[in-house]
């Protein structure tokens, strides 16, 4: 993302909007400027702010007068008055930033919007995670910190040594160059994204070992790691996962509950 210096009036509304804190007023130019190394191309500033399309010269003049009079102008805080934010054309590898940061851009690998897969949300139809199994969503960068793939690689390489099964439809799986070691493609390691999710599956009895490995690696990365663990319930709605997590010392109360109302259509007879 870039800011058109011909349009920007340095109102600074976009500065707190940026989830990565990548926008600032350049004192030399007195215009908003984007630190492109920190920008993850999430398009929050471009899409989330309302736009007024006002004349920049007029707005600057009014702001100068108000500033001279020491008036505190209190505009709507979510507005770009001159539509100054301008998307740039993205090429490889920078284009990967948007794919992992803008939820409105579908991943080519999954065909769905977002950073992961359907995971447990359609488990009533896919039966991807079965009774006795645990699905893991290990997310990096959220909330509001971001992550470089160099840190994601630390986790994929650590987990590749365990008896786990990576989710092949997950966008990060597409970036693994060596599936034996978990190493990612070299040219994306310095790219920063809003978040990336590693998804895998293991037997429920392996949950403590997998979580111990995840926590160990989490202490080595310069970001936040959010962990989700799922399973299929039995016929009464109970699950084997909760006691395992409790014994491992985890506190958990929030969850995503699949109601089991989905179904696979019956094949049509020829």
């Amino acid at each position: 993302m870039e800011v058109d210096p011909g349009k920007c009036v340095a109102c600074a509304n976009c500065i707190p909007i940026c989830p990565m804190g990548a926008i600032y007023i350049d004192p030399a130019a007195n215009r908003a400027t984007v630190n492109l190394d920190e920008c993850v191309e999430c398009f929050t500033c471009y899409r989330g702010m309302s736009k007024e399309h006002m004349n920049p010269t007029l707005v600057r003049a009014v702001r100068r007068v108000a500033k001279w009079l020491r008036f505190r102008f209190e505009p709507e805080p979510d507005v770009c008055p001159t539509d100054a934010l301008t998307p740039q054309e993205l090429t490889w590898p920078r284009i990967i930033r948007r794919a992992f940061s803008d939820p409105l851009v579908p991943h080519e690998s999954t065909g769905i919007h977002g950073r992961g897969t359907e995971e447990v949300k359609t488990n009533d139809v896919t039966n991807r995670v079965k009774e006795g199994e645990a699905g893991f969503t290990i997310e990096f960068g959220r909330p509001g910190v971001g992550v470089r793939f160099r840190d994601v690689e630390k986790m994929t390489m650590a987990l590749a040594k365990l008896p786990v099964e990576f989710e092949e439809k997950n966008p990060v799986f597409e970036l693994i160059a060596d599936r034996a070691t978990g190493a990612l493609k070299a040219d994306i390691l310095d790219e920063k994204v809003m978040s990336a999710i590693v998804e895998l599956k293991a037997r429920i009895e392996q949950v403590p070992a997998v979580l111990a490995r995840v926590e160990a690696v989490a202490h080595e990365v310069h970001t936040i790691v959010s962990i989700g663990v799922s399973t299929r319930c039995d016929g009464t709605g109970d699950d084997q996962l909760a006691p395992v997590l409790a014994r491992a010392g985890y506190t958990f109360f929030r969850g995503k509950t699949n109601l089991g109302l989905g179904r696979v259509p019956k094949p049509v007879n020829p």
Partner: protein
Amino acid sequence: MTNTLHRFGAPETQRDDYIVFAMASKGINDAGAPQKLQAFLRLAVKHGPINVGHAIKGGMYRPSANLNPLAHWSRPETADPDAVVRSIEAPSTVAAVFDDVAKVEALLKDLKAADLGISINISSLAEEANACCKRAGITRHSIEYSLGFHGDLNQLPDRHVLELSTMCGHGMLSHNFARKMIDMVRENRRTPRQAATYMARFCTCGIFNLTRATRVLEQARKGE
């Protein structure tokens, strides 16, 4: 896509936060999904959600591409759930947010009777969701638990900011903007409801809970 799972806050701060969402599985049961998703949202709207959203087209609180400058003096809080329903043209994820478990229970009974055949999930306190399912005569199929945040926790802001910003799980609501909204409320430059509405416009999926946000902002104002 774990955008609803990791909302920050103690259990007692999440008892007015229920996200019910629907989706079809790509290539398995997505034929006719747009009509089923519309039917889901129409049922949800009947029970008075505080927000609804479409993962691609946006929520019922949206930014304006051509804002009238007079909005600085008087900006109506426009929110049209029916526009979200009408915007569904392709398989996607649609969601409705509730602040009252009784409304969720009534919706679940309707959904069970409607038998849409697409996957329905609730993101909330897990035990509350399970109890709600049982009262509606539904046995849950699967569960995903949030184990919270790990790693370099020094990079996280304070609890009020986190309670607000994590209500957009895609990260479209920045910590800095949540902090700015708290400051504007504390300085009495905006009401909690106005500040919550500004934040809701950044959540493209429409899963931001304005009731909870308004309560958090009121608590932050008083330093509670």
